């Protein structure tokens, strides 16, 4: 009845889990004898490793997801009390139907109506990444939530205050006990639970994935196939692997945005002037649903994005990426109207409706 599906990438975790399960089983038989009610311990969950993905980077052995940890993480993800007003939860800006982005918002608004200067990024396949946000300001998934919780323009809270609020909400001590064995609420446990929820969010069942893995389903149309071929020759050097990101930081020649003078891209984190206006290559999964696009959400459609790459790139005060220069040294990617149409048709095959409608991740 305790099911654990072994995962090749994760033998260590499995061994540990088996030990834990053996221990739990022995406890059970004990309480069975005593004829007492059985309180089940947390059950390990498997993080899906799609065969066409690179290997998981998140250290699962340090924080193995369990059913109870996942449920706590999900509750925290949708908990308004993580913000100072009690209203803005993680899910406020990360809506499932938009692949956990803020539907239609160029820049999201946070507490006190304040706005930041970046577009909300999707939450999906984070177990396969090791740096987070547009500029790499978090170098471990567990630490990432600190940024939105404490940023004045987002949730405007502090970790100590959040923990105090959780302690005073009747349901939380019990949920922490279920997940971690005692009712203690601390930052380590809160962040671990949020990570357990997030690492389970794997989007790998788009039409593209099924075609790649030769599973049952619709084949590519000829337009989509053409788009894939074009994508591979013109886009995939940066949007690499089946995560569609090489996880590097690049300046793509996007015109400087005078509305947000505090924006320096990766330079804000690294301090290097050469990193000015460099942003992390975003994954393109569910890209159809995550509009608007770019770090500041300036482009409303995929057509606008491709028009930018063909005709809109400029020098922006930083070092524009070499990959985006033509043979004659000018900026941009050669794309005609038909090619753009085909690439967009292909990009839409990355929409994963199973993920977008997965009840496990839904608020209600």
């Amino acid at each position: 009845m305790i099911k654990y599906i072994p995962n090749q990438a994760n033998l260590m975790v499995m061994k540990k889990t088996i030990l834990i399960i053996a221990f739990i089983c022995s406890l059970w038989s004990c309480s069975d004898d005593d004829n007492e009610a059985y309180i089940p311990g947390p059950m390990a969950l498997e993080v899906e490793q799609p065969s066409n993905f690179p290997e998981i980077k998140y250290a699962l052995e340090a924080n193995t997801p369990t059913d109870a940890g996942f449920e706590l993480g999900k509750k925290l993800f949708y908990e308004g009390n993580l913000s100072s007003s009690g209203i803005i939860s993680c899910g406020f800006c990360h809506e499932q139907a938009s692949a956990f982005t803020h539907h239609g918002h160029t820049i999201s608004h946070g507490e006190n109506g304040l706005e930041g200067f970046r577009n909300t990024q999707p939450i999906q396949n984070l177990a396969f990444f090791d740096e987070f946000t547009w500029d790499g300001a978090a170098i471990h998934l567990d630490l990432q939530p600190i940024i939105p919780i404490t940023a004045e323009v987002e949730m405007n809270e502090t970790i100590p205050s959040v923990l105090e609020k959780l302690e005073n909400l009747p349901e939380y001590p019990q949920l922490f006990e279920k997940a971690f064995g005692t009712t203690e609420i601390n930052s380590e446990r809160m962040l671990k639970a949020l990570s357990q929820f997030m690492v389970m969010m794997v989007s790998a069942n788009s039409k593209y994935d099924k075609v790649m893995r030769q599973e049952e389903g619709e084949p590519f149309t000829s337009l989509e196939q053409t788009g894939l071929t074009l994508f591979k020759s013109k886009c995939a050097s940066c949007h690499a692997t089946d995560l569609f990101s090489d996880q590097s930081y690049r300046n793509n020649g996007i015109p400087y945005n005078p509305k947000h003078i505090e924006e320096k891209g990766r330079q804000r984190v690294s301090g290097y002037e050469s990193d000015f206006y460099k942003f992390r290559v975003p994954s393109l999964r569910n890209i159809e649903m995550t509009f608007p696009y770019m770090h500041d959400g300036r482009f409303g459609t995929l057509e606008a994005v491709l028009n930018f790459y063909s005709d809109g790139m400029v020098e922006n005060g930083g070092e524009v990426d070499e990959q985006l220069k033509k043979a004659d040294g000018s900026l941009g990617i050669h794309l005609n109207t038909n090619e753009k149409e085909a690439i967009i048709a292909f990009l839409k095959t990355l929409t994963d409706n199973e993920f977008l409608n997965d009840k496990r991740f839904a608020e209600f």
Partner: protein
Amino acid sequence: MLAISILSCSSDDNEEVITGSGSITVEFDNAYLDSDLLLNTSSYNASGTEKIKISKVKYIVSNIKLEDEDGHVYVVPKNESYFIVDESNEDSQMIELSDVPAANYTKITYGLGVDQAKYLEGADGQGDFLTKAQEAGMMWSWQAGYKFFVFEGLYTSDDTTTETAFAYHMGSHGTALDNYKEISMTLANTARVRTDMTPIVHIVADLSNTLMGDTEFKLDDAPQIHVDAVKSPQIATNVSGMFMVHHVHN
């Protein structure tokens, strides 16, 4: 006869048998040049004509190791080895380490800041250090990282005649730049940890080194330094050079 031989034996070697474990306190005593550092009230000379009043001094001390006279190293368990020293909080300046093997310690090593390995452990094993760091204002809100060193106050100079705020915050820059520093010092005299003896290692930190260490900083040039690929590592070097073991109380 046996008793005599044992007695003579130990008396020959003139050594006590050291067993068990005890505690040791590491005291961080902030100073400015030859004076005790006082927040807000005192004015101190900095570079050139600059005079500063300091309002905040906070830094993270971590990964403490003690080496005894035989070269054995005791490493404080990593998850219990992160501390915030805060000039405005006296308790924070006395770091008490318990369960330390009894020995005669001659050397101390510790880190200034948070090492990359700790970051890469994520939330695992950090307990409530993150909460403490945030309470102490030692976390940035725009990046998921710790401020290793915070030095703030007001300054004046010949060019800046009205009191102007300065703030130096130093930490690592994601994976791009590691500003964690390790400091190793020989103790002025041996720290004798015993089951019934708790020595105090008295370390003086001369904060004047921040602006006038290996690299000289003029507040008139840059009163605010937070993330700077050139200056942040220089601040890290200056600050890691500010410590000296004054003496050990046994």
